[in-house]
């Protein structure tokens, strides 16, 4: 049997303390090395069970594994996108002016970048479960939209994720406790607008960045 290629935890593009004071080093360390790592480990285990089930033509086990794969693969994809769309507050990429084309499109769609941020935060605070808030671009129409995904679901087919914000309690609780509004406000200080603009312009495949490379090596 050929050794199965394993997904691995990506390195962060910055240090664990680099998003302080908006996201504490303690949160970033646990979030990256524990939560994200657990998704990667569980995904690899589920994929290995899946290949066994496929080899045995065991379709019932294959079906039973779907939920597990959806959750852990989704967790891996979402967190990878999340790390990449954040950057230390001192970087020039945290200014919407680093995303001139996207800023223009957001202004025509939402009125202004600030209005988009307000709407986005309302969407984040309205979540009634663990989940994510997303700025997405509809692939057909090119329209910009706000949406949420529950638990670790990725954005649906036909939508290209541009900016994802983790609203699981583990993403903010150690620092903000139940004050998720302050977390949602603070995170705009560390949004990597340059990266979000790259995704705005890139092919749907290209959005997944380092994940598309991984995908092709499986």
């Amino acid at each position, binding site marked *: 049997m050929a050794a199965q290629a394993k997904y691995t935890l990506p390195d962060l593009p910055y240090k664990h303390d680099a998003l302080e004071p908006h996201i504490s080093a303690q949160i970033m360390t646990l979030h990256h090395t524990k939560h994200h790592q*657990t998704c990667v480990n569980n995904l690899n285990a589920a994929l290995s069970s899946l290949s066994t089930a496929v080899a045995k033509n065991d379709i019932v086990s294959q079906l039973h594994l779907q939920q597990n794969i959806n959750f852990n693969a989704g967790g891996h994809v979402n967190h990878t996108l999340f790390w990449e769309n954040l950057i230390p507050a001192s970087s020039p990429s945290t200014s919407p002016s680093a995303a001139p084309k996207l800023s223009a499109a957001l202004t025509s769609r939402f009125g202004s970048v600030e209005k988009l941020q307000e709407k986005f935060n309302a969407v984040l605070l309205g979540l*009634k479960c*663990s989940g994510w808030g997303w700025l997405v671009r509809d692939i057909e129409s090119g329209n910009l939209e706000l949406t949420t995904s*529950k*638990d670790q679901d990725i954005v649906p087919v036909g939508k290209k994720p541009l900016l994802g914000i983790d609203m699981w309690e583990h993403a903010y*609780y150690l620092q903000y*406790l139940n004050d998720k509004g302050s977390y949602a406000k603070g995170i705009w200080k560390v949004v990597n607008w340059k990266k979000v603009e790259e995704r705005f312009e890139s092919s749907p495949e290209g959005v997944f960045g380092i994940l598309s490379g991984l995908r092709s090596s499986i």
Partner: protein
Amino acid sequence: MASTSFVRGKATLPDLPYDYGALEPSISGKIMELHHKNHHQTYVNSFNAASEQLEAAESKEDIAAQIALQPLINFHGGGHINHTLFWENLAPSKNGGGGEPAGSLKTAIESSYGDFSQFKTKFNTALAGIQGSGWAWLVKDNETGQVQIRTYANQDPVVGKYTPLLGVDAWEHAYYLQYQNRKAEYFSAIWDVINWKAVEGRLK
């Protein structure tokens, strides 16, 4: 309708039957305080706000608005009910918490799960299997009278066919300050503060 001036009673935050620190070391006083004073209070406030909107929609006979409010009622009403039941089915170890179920509850658990330790293992597996936010419950099936373990997403309440007996909150806010990502430790420590008398009382 003549009775549109009817005013519903408001939901209120119940007092805890013990001090915030009384469940230590299983659950820290800080967690209990935030969980009760902030999280539970928010469910109560938001439920009352949604109820008022519902009342207004009912008096206007606006069916679409009544339907649109259901997710809010379910979420915040569920959050209020679930947490109220949760506080009551916990007790400090030195004041009745922990140990094992007795009487008719013991019999019911043994009939469904063999013995208490197998039940505990299954309950912990159910808790660990919750993907996202949610609760694990021991419930009574009202048709068969049998008890069983069920998990519920988010703040979905135990209603309808089932009666809630024992609930454990598996939202991250229930353990994160103390256990961070090591949730299995929380699930194992909570058995020291289960109020089996209260659970048995719900079976009747």
